């Protein structure tokens, strides 16, 4: 068991998972806006 390597990976785990939600949030916002702007 390499706890030192785990400690190295934990910030990437947190930042990465949070990052997906942030990027996804931006895309959701843009899609919603896009749909509203192009509504016929």
């Amino acid at each position: 068991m390499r706890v030192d390597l785990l400690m190295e990976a934990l910030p990437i785990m947190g930042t990465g998972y949070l990052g997906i939600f942030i990027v996804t949030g931006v895309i959701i916002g843009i899609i919603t806006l896009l749909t509203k702007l192009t509504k016929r």
Partner: protein
Amino acid sequence: MEVLIQNVSYITWQMLVMWGIGGVLIYLAIVKQMEPTLLLPMGFGAILVNLPVAVEGTGVQHVLDALFSIGIDGAELFPLMLFVGIGAMIDFQPLLTNPKLMIFGAAAQFGIFFTLALASLLGYDLRDAASISIIGAADGPTSIFVATELGSKYLGAIMVAAYSYMALVPLIQPPIIKLCTTKAERKIKMQYKGKPVSKTTKILFPIVVTVIVGIVAPDAVALIGFLMFGNLIRECGVMQSISETAQNALANLITIFLGITIASRMKAADFLQVDTLIIIGLGLVAFVFDTFGGIMVAKLMNLLTKEKINPMIGAAGISAFPMSARVVHKLGLEEDNQNFLLMHSVGVNVSGQIASVIAGGLILALVKAEIGG
């Protein structure tokens, strides 16, 4: 006669094991019809590269090395070209109708990050742990792209695990979904409000997503760019025959070449190692925790919103398109034959496709920043 005896003497028990593995893959492709365009060339290739003649370094190995060099190692041509075909296959309408579904696509990438931590704890350095964890993207091209970019020495095992588990989604996901949900939750019906989506939105969507990802997660832009380019070909309405070619002929041809190229890294000496088994195990962990993450976020949303969500659709956020959506739909029908979850699960599933690519890009960016690559 002498040559024949010499060649037979080169055969090792490890080669025989690899022939067996190749045979199993061919069996799954033909009899069980699991991803035949991929598993058939992989199975055949596994036998091909483990013949004594291949060990001697004849033409077979040179051709496979050339395919590997062009298609995977150099410019990652195969995964990117395959994404054009996948993009052309995907109809993003269910997602555009209800963009909130993207949250589940993001949530179901949890397995990637959980596996990253677990692989690190097991002693894999950051480069390899990240490459192994990306099996959880449930998306072969992304796994190959990330593992190649990070220069992982376990590329062969990662490719085999990624594609095998994608084919096994109908077997892996149902028990996890049932374990994480109650019967009452699985019976939740969801209204599908099929709002019309304008053609302009469908055309602008791939362009806008490419621009956003290009700005926010530039390391994912090659993958998302080719995926969205394929989708633009589909949606533009003036390239119908090219769209059909990309979805069928192009995707199938690239998959066949990809399969046999993956097999070139299945030589007994490299493949039959304890690490391969550990990586295959970690890949399964990634798929299980992806499913778990998607379901749990759906359950969390049920606590916060009035309109109830069937938590099973969270499981479709695992990328494996379209198997995962079908699995969820089938489980819904098993509980109640009037519970049609297909449109919701497809929406989540295509979100998972985008989210897994973003996850791959973020992993690349974060790991490169950490190791200074």
